[in-house]
């Protein structure tokens, strides 16, 4: 099967932008940064894949037109917070199928002018009709995790402390200052036991990559040792009958296995993880679901520094969603940018030593009665 490489990556700093900085402008700037990094010209790009949730109809075509990439196949991909990684998977499949050799993938979202008070499932969803908001789901998870595993509120809060410490060195992060444990625990309450600093922010941003076959790399005049996308898992949730553990994360387990099998690796081979920490507790239960941390020990591992840069398994050297920000459709591609920088030794003061194999995980959306809507697992090697 054709190997798929990242030829170049680029993003814009995530944050809260003025209304004049439109969805299209964010996407175009990230795309141009990726094209420049890859040394690619418009004429090199054969197809464009765009992940977004709130961009509206044919947003990808609006962006492609601004980039001068009209005429090519352009497709829009929505899997809620896994949209960016899903767009990458479509490009990866197209290259593996031999349909193209050089593709542009963009994840983009403009949220601050259209999302207030937090994101929710679709209004038709039964849980949404009961008042379910994303924060509430993770609060229910956190409460039960503490009950079942004896984890403390402080241990869970340490995920935010750790990720904010990492993002001090990420110029693309929305927040680049450390926070203290006291600040996290005493922040304004959102959904008990979670407070404001347990939640990723509402953000604007875009991230992009030029994705190539070996032929594509040659065409761009690049060496063949660019980071390789070894596998991309994609699964959806299943209906959960009965009274099981809501933190079982069977959906994460299945997404992990799919990617590990495809890449021919074991979880213990992974050097670093970009994890979908939309909420502090989510980082913990998803790491456990993936088999990267023993069940029930994720909170303790975090508090002990084992998931910090310099620890046994660095998680979110970028600062994660909590600190880098979470423009939902852009997040998956921002994770890919971070893995690319880490695997090419360009991550500066947040560089993970010996980063050779990385995993990026996204979980997007909820469907009433299931353990989630979509999970993506991207495995990349240097």
């Amino acid at each position, binding site marked *: 099967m054709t190997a798929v490489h990242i030829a170049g990556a680029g993003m814009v700093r995530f944050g809260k932008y003025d209304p004049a900085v439109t969805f299209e402008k964010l996407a175009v700037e990230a795309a141009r940064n990726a094209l420049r990094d890859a040394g690619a010209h418009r004429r090199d790009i054969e197809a464009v894949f765009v992940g977004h949730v709130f961009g509206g109809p044919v947003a990808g075509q609006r962006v492609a037109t601004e980039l001068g990439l009209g005429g090519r196949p352009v497709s829009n991909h929505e899997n809620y917070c896994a949209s960016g990684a899903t767009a990458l998977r479509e490009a990866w499949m197209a290259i593996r199928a031999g349909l193209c050799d050089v593709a542009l993938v963009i994840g983009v979202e403009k949220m601050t002018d259209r999302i207030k008070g937090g994101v929710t499932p679709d209004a038709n969803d039964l849980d949404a009709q009961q008042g379910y908001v994303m924060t509430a789901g993770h609060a229910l998870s956190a409460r039960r995790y503490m009950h079942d595993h004896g984890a403390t509120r402080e241990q869970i809060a340490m995920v935010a402390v750790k990720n904010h410490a990492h993002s001090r060195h990420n110029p693309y992060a929305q927040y680049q200052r450390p926070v203290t444990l006291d600040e996290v625990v005493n922040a304004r309450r959102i*959904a008990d036991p979670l407070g404001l600093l347990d939640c990723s922010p509402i953000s604007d941003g875009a991230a992009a990559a030029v994705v190539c076959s070996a032929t594509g790399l040659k065409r761009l005049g690049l060496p063949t040792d660019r980071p390789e996308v070894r596998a991309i898992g994609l699964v959806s949730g299943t209906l959960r009958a009965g009274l099981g553990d809501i933190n079982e994360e069977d959906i994460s387990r299945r997404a992990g296995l799919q990617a590990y099998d495809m890449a021919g690796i074991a979880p213990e081979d992974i050097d670093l993880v970009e994890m979908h920490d939309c909420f502090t507790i989510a980082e913990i239960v998803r790491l456990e679901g993936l088999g990267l941390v023993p069940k029930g020990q994720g909170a303790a591992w975090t508090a002990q520094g084992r998931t910090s840069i310099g620890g046994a398994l660095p998680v979110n050297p970028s600062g994660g969603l909590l600190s880098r920000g979470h423009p939902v459709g852009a997040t998956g591609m921002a994770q890919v940018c971070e893995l690319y920088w880490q695997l090419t030794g360009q991550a500066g003061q947040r560089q993970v030593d010996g980063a050779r194999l990385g995993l990026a995980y996204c979980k997007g959306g909820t469907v009433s009665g299931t353990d989630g809507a979509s999970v993506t697992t991207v495995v990349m090697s240097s």
Partner: protein
Amino acid sequence: MSAPMSSQGLSAIAETAAPASRPLRDGLLQTDPPRLLGSACRACSTRLFPARDFCPACGSDDVEGGVPLATAGTVYSFTVVRQAPPGRETPYSLAYIDLADGVRVMAQVTGDPDALRIDMPVQLDIRPVGRRDGCDLIGYVFVPSLLPEAA
């Protein structure tokens, strides 16, 4: 309670007076006696809410719909939502309730949020939970069993 609109012709809808109330969603519940309605698998006995026409546990299509579910349950986990998108009054308590017949339901719980505990017993209450197009929407909440409100 009205029949599903989708099963009627356009003329029938125009001739029918607007009902005073209707369920949040068709097939979700009954008011007399107040019960949530689920499905039960004839092959493996797994119950589900809301009802589905297949069994996710064993894969069987031999499933009975409209099955009244247990009204008593316990709190599996809970939260007090203090910030929500516009249109929802905060705070409110949201919980997973484990019903006595093995079905987990997400619903709001009434009463003092500070009194909520994992494993505390609660009881179903079918009641109006909002209004849409001039009629009451009938939904469901759970009420702590030990509080006077449950009596």
